[in-house]
């Protein structure tokens, strides 16, 4: 196993207007990744983790609330299935109280944090669904440090929205790269929420700006 295995860069998905479905209110949506490809992508991400983390004896997977936990749970269960390991440390972290826009925007209701282990000297993999401005991950790192000092922290995201970062944060494991403008929205849907698995891009035609 090589510690420094390079992460292959998947081909970026570009948003071509002809692929859009037009919705009622001027919103258009386009499927970026269907359930079959999402499944393949999750398995690839698992194998990339295995490359770097061996038997996960000193590693912990931390899902960021609220949306990152859905990916993190999938990754965690797929990893256990692939490696036949009985337990891999897994936690869910809410970052609401660490946000940098408190008192600047409305309050978002906090979700549950469940972390029944210390992160002291652990190799932590933070998991979120979409990496956009990077502010959530920044807050997540602050929140994570309240559970101990990890020896290493990595970031896994399913969707990397490029050219939109507000802070210098990049992911170590990436499902797909998407080039978007800020008025567009990327939404990952999961069957756990009674939707079909898939990644969708939403564009508001009335609010389009280059």
């Amino acid at each position, binding site marked *: 196993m090589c510690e420094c295995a390079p992460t292959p860069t998947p081909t970026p998905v570009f948003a071509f207007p002809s692929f859009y479905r037009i919705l009622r209110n001027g919103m258009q949506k386009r499927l970026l990744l269907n359930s079959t490809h999402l499944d393949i992508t999750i398995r690839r991400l698992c194998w990339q983790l295995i490359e770097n983390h061996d038997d996960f004896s000193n590693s912990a997977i931390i899902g960021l609330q609220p949306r990152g936990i859905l990916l993190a749970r999938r990754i965690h269960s797929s990893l256990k299935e692939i490696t036949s390991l009985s337990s891999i440390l897994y936690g869910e972290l809410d970052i609401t*109280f660490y946000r940098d826009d408190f008192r600047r925007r409305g*309050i978002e209701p906090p979700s549950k944090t469940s*972390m029944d282990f210390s992160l002291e000297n652990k190799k932590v993999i933070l998991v979120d669904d979409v990496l956009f401005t990077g502010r959530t991950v920044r807050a997540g790192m602050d929140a994570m440090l309240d559970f101990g000092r990890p020896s290493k922290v990595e970031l896994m995201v399913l969707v990397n929205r490029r050219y939109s970062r507000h802070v210098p944060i990049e992911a170590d494991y990436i499902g797909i790269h998407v080039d978007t403008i800020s008025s567009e929205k990327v939404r990952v849907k999961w069957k756990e929420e009674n939707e079909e698995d898939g990644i969708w891009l939403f564009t508001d035609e009335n609010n389009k700006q280059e």
Partner: protein
Amino acid sequence: MTTLSTKHLLGIKDLKLDDIRLILSTAANFKEVLSRPIKKVPSLRDVTIANLFFENSTRTRLSFELAERRLSADVINFTASSSSVSKGETLIDTVNNILAMKVDIIVMRHPNAGAAEFLSRYVNAQIVNAGDGPHEHPTQALLDAFSIQEKFGDVKGLKVAIVGDILHSRVALSNILCLQKLGAEVMVCGPSTLLPKHINSLGVKVSNNLREALEWCDVANMLRIQLERQDIRYFPSLREYIQLFGLNMEILSSLSKKITIMHPGPINRGVEITSEVADSDQSIILSQVENGVAVRMAVLYLLAGRTAE
């Protein structure tokens, strides 16, 4: 709904059911924060809070201060005995001088009913009432509700008896309002002289018999006799009060079901409640204190989050 409908926390009376639910659910999140190795979050980094205590307090003041510090707020403390109030300064002047130092939230305890409401009309800061005379003590009621909810899962449908000096108690009024909003039934119990005349207009049951109240309830909240507020003698002797309204193990174990015992503190051991009862497994007195910090964190967090709107 994710924000409070009120700018200040002056009393339970002004809160809607959704507000109470929001505070209780946010408090559950903060309770988890308090179980972490580092029990602190940075939310209120840019907020300054002044604790103004014009009346003695241990629990409430420490609990508020800890809640504020765990939210990373800057805290200044003020107690009346060591201040210019004793030199004749008015409340508004005192507070405006403190506000000139750029304070965002004021937590105030005052011996006069309505002091918090009065202040909220005249000064430009958010006010949290930490007890105003015999009127209201909203954070105590919220933490009591939180503790009951934690123990029973839901407050709705429960029967709660409040026993003791109802007349001088701010905890009683806030608790009655809060528990009723959450769907519980409330009974007050005590000697007739210590029950306000028209208390039944609040929709509570009234009893002068401790055993009757205890047999009826799921939770008994035992209140202290507030001797410092009593201008005349309301009962013949303390010994008689203890015999009629003191909760001891003998009564507690003779009841047909196991009830939960609460006390807002400070306890007068051997008066309203014996040591055995206070320290028994039916008592949740110390978890009330523990929950107080989480509930106050929730209140301050939610109020501070409103200021930007």
